[in-house]
């Protein structure tokens, strides 16, 4: 079961994981990753981070990423939740989770989900600094490198 969600609302990790596993007793481990807004960028203090996305394509991309993980590993469930809009430092941005009978599959799939999401889902971050200036975040080459670990074609350049 792959579940994805995009929205403004915060998420409760415990409730999300409980919903993901339900009454199943065939899950041996759940890996998760939570991305959080940091309070500084390039040594400057952040007031907020604003997430823009491409409605429609975002959901398609997240479903495709979740299904790709389910094809690569024997997962009982996998989850991607990504927030959009204005977020403050310390607030969670994204939650990915992968549940499997075996821990290595759960851990590997978790890393895969976040690596793919960072390069294949249409989100853009804008930083607003305490001094009022704004800047769009640059894509990092290390994200494309992380993709290569999964034998993935980089996003068209």
């Amino acid at each position, binding site marked *: 079961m792959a579940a994805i969600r995009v929205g403004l609302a915060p998420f409760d990790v415990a409730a999300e994981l409980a919903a993901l596993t339900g009454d199943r007793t065939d899950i041996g481990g759940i890996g998760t990753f939570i991305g959080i807004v940091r309070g500084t960028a390039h040594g400057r203090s952040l007031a907020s981070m604003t997430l823009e996305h491409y409605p429609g394509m975002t959901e398609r991309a997240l479903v495709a990423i979740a299904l790709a993980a389910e094809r690569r590993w024997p997962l009982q469930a996998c989850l991607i939740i990504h927030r959009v809009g204005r977020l403050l430092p310390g607030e969670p941005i994204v939650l990915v989770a992968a549940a499997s009978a075996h821990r290595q599959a759960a851990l590997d799939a978790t890393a895969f989900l976040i690596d793919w999401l960072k390069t294949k889902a*249409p989100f853009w971050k804008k930083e607003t600094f305490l001094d009022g200036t704004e800047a769009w975040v640059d894509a990092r080459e290390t994200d494309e490198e992380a993709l290569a670990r999964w034998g993935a074609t980089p996003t068209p350049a």
Partner: protein
Amino acid sequence: MKILYFAWLRERIGCGEETVALPADVTTVADLVSWLGSRSPGHASALAPASDGRRIVRCAVNQDFADPETRVTERDEVAFFPPVTGG
């Protein structure tokens, strides 16, 4: 054709969505970028390649990532945006 712009492309062009009537000789994403670039200085600046010739702007056709060679028609939804930075 419906065209969408996101992030700093949207800001530089000054709009997030426009509907255009496609000239007959625009058949690929590369053609579309050239033609859109002639519509305003904002379009030209937003869609220009980097000084080293590298393509900065990414494109999706009907919500799938696309290449310069991807073919486009009047009925497609085409989006232009910077490299993604989510997660």
